[in-house]
């Protein structure tokens, strides 16, 4: 993964940028020694930028090597007795023969499907937030 042309050019750029910034620091140091007071500030700034560039490069490589972090999910804790309640309601729902009951169930299914679709939409919406969906 790290040896595609895209990554190789990134590695090359990182090395060149680091060397370039260190060289600029050295150049400012020579100017500072020659009497340019302002150059003392830049003498320290350029190496800091170079180190930041190196850290940045390490982070990109580590992100690439590490698989994507799983989406944090809030743990849903069912209240005590929920399971038993569900069992009881399931027992209540046992279909009784008759046209009335069938019609009722059909209505319930539609409502349930609608509700599930609504939940799925909400879930999708929340999951999409804060995730990467931009330029690569």
């Amino acid at each position, binding site marked *: 993964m790290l040896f595609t042309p895209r990554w190789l050019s990134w590695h090359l750029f990182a090395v060149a940028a680091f060397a370039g910034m260190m060289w600029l620091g050295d150049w400012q140091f020579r100017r500072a020694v020659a009497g340019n007071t302002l150059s003392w500030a830049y003498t320290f700034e350029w190496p800091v930028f170079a180190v*930041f560039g190196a850290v*940045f490069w390490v982070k*990109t490589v580590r*992100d690439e090597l590490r698989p994507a972090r799983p989406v944090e999910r809030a743990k849903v804790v069912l209240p005590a007795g929920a399971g038993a309640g569900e069992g009881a309601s399931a027992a209540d729902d046992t279909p009784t023969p008759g046209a009335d009951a069938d019609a009722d169930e059909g209505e319930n299914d539609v409502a349930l499907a609608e509700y599930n679709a609504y939940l799925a939409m909400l879930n999708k919406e929340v999951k999409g*937030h*804060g995730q*990467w969906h*931009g*330029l*690569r």
Partner: protein
Amino acid sequence: MDADRLRAVVVRAYRVMAYVTGTMLIILCFVGIPLQVFAGNDAVAKIVGTAHGFLYIVYLVVAFTMTRMVRIRTASLTTVIVLAAGTIPVLTFVVERWVTRRYINPALAADQAGTARAAVSHSQ
């Protein structure tokens, strides 16, 4: 401090640094450099230029931390734009608005959704 609060603090620090660095850069480019070039007075450019240089170091660290906390990929053009914005006049302000709308607000909204969900499961 939990992760959500830390994220909010880093986002605020990023905003402050974006505005401070951006303002310094505007003063440098539209006051300091014209004075230096046309009036031969380099006092403003020297002071503001040096200040911007050091502020930009702080900006880099804060902005980089922020991009990671709102899940912007490190190896992405977005991250590069956010970091480079501190060296290009006016761009800091534009990028801050864009990143807020596109990444920070969704990330903070996801935090709030998580908190709300946790509250619901506790109250039940």
